């Protein structure tokens, strides 16, 4: 699924990586637990989360995750966006809940890991 389509489905604002919107994402993973995200073997993944802090971006950086959706209108801070852009990530902000965002993307054909 193209990041552009993910943004449309989630009614999301793209706050970083507008140039990445044509990239294909294969799978989605929803979690607020970074410890868990760090155990995933998959890359080419979009992380859907309600946890908005710098460590979330760091975790994505180490795990080679290229895109993150922050749900419920949570805003990434400037240092977070700076770090994300520096690492070539795409950041989306959706008004929907974690549950609704995940459901909509699943319905649209994004694959789960487990």
């Amino acid at each position, binding site marked *: 699924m193209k990041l552009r389509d993910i943004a449309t489905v989630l009614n999301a604002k793209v706050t970083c990586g507008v140039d990445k919107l044509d990239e294909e994402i294969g799978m989605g993973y929803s979690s607020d637990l*970074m*410890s868990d995200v760090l155990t995933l073997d998959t890359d080419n993944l979009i992380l859907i989360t309600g946890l908005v802090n710098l460590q979330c971006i760091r975790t994505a*950086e180490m795990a080679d995750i290229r895109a993150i959706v922050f749900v419920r209108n949570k805003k990434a801070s400037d240092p977070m966006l700076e770090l994300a852009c520096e690492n070539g990530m795409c950041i989306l902000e959706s008004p929907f809940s974690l549950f609704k965002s995940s459901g909509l993307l699943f319905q649209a054909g994004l694959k789960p890991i487990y």
Partner: protein
Amino acid sequence: MKLTFNIQGGDFTHAGKPSSEVKKVLKQLNVDGKTVKNIVIALYEAEVNVVAHAWKGTVSAEIDENKITIFVEDDGPGIPDIELAMQAGYSTASKQVRDMGFGAGMGLPNMKKNTDELLIESIVGKGTKVKMVNYFK
């Protein structure tokens, strides 16, 4: 090549900088992507442990032709029972650490999974030394 960094206990804002630097260097050296990911995830987990559980620490990464050897050493409370700490799910992390998205007791097992060699030595009341080795494919 040797890289060294300092880590401050409790400072979640800067946790990850050493891993990030090491990642950049390994990419420049054309180390295979999967291996780089293993190394930086293990190092990041070790860094977060110092930030979450200890007072201060250092990272030193020695990069050779065919491997990287990383030492993460801290001044801190130490680990009384390393075997117990290695068990998935065992954690003494504070609520603050859990609110940051960590503290699920999965860090040490994940370090084991992502390294070729992992050695942990600890003295209660003094600190912990972690040695990790990864061979390049």
